[in-house]
């Protein structure tokens, strides 16, 4: 596979390293409770998603109640408690994109992939996600596929891209 993301190598060694980075991030913030969001960001970035064990460890380190950490982690769309797909396709539903037909675009991609916005295919190939304004309103409607922004996204072209990602060996 050409585009293995970091989260695809869960060897003990890699795990160790990620733990160290996470620990360093918390230390840099002096284990302050108000650094929770930064720490969750780092954990999500390192692991691709937030496991319950990880959330509990963060709660202990920052001396926060587990329910508070869970509440914050589930409030923001950025954080995910379930593993994300190998590929991701994020459709912007911000005002500008909405006006330029983002809903029809999303409906086309949902139909093509058989996924509902916010979910990941059973084979973990693709996550179909939504966002509120990517800061690219000038090229609305905007879609991000694996980190690359496409402007003036055309439903048929995007459909084909999504199909290609799903069919990839």
């Amino acid at each position, binding site marked *: 596979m050409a585009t293995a993301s970091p989260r695809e190598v869960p060897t003990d060694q890699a795990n160790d390293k990620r733990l160290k980075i996470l620990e360093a991030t918390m230390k840099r913030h002096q284990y302050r409770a108000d650094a929770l969001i930064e720490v969750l960001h780092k954990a999500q970035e390192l692991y691709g998603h937030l496991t*319950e064990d990880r*959330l*509990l460890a963060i*709660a202990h380190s920052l001396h926060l*109640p*587990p*329910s*508070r*950490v*869970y*509440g914050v982690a*589930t*409030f923001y769309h950025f954080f995910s408690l379930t593993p994300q797909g190998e590929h991701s396709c994020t459709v912007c539903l911000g005002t500008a994109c909405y006006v330029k037909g983002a809903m029809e675009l999303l409906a086309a991609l949902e139909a093509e992939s058989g996924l509902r916005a916010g979910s990941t295919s059973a084979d973990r190939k693709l996550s179909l996600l939504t966002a509120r304004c990517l800061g690219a309103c000038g090229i609305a409607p905007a879609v991000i596929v694996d980190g690359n922004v496409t402007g003036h996204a055309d439903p048929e072209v995007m459909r084909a891209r999504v199909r290609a990602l799903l069919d990839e060996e």
Partner: protein
Amino acid sequence: MAARTLTINGTLISARSNETVLEAAREAGISIPTLCHLDGLSEVGACRLCLVEIAGSPKLQPACHTTVTEGMEVQTDTPRLKAHRRAIVELLFAERNHICAVCVASGHCELQQLAVEVGMSHVRYEYLSPDCSVDISHARFGIDHNRCVLCTRCVRACDEVEGVHTWDIAGRGTNARLITDLNVPWGEATSCTSCGKCLLACPTGAIFSRGSTVAELERDASRIATIVAARNERW
């Protein structure tokens, strides 16, 4: 403490400078409906039932969360406010599955009482009828999410009075749900001391003591304020 003079519904009132409009009104014998406010707990201004009109401000302000100022002119019971309050109560009913006829708190429920106060004869909004669970894993208490209005009184009572913070809210919008610890069943939440303060604070039948049946749950939410006041005296 400096005094402030203001009018509420045209009546001249004096209040202490650090008081909220809600406190000043209550002292003057004017009642303003509330739900998320509970004496003894911090204010979150979440339910918006206590909204009042203040002359000079186009926006409605929550009485529980607005400090009095000199010369303030407050209206608490205009047709506009009444319409908003009724709409808020209807929305609360439409959001979950409130079936008073089979509820432990029926007759002692603040939400039910509010519906009577605002004259809610029926609900004009479509019921969301969400799929909500009932958790009776705790040895002494249970929580029925069908009846929760997300006021966070339990969250604050547990955090601020018991000093524990077992509860919080997970998710957002219509998916928001009350959770204990890391979204585990309440009975497995190791932080809970089984003190029962959340049960005292809950305005509806959402948190109940196990073994109580329909209309049997009577409790006195003012005991939270009594506990807080007693503590303040001691320290």
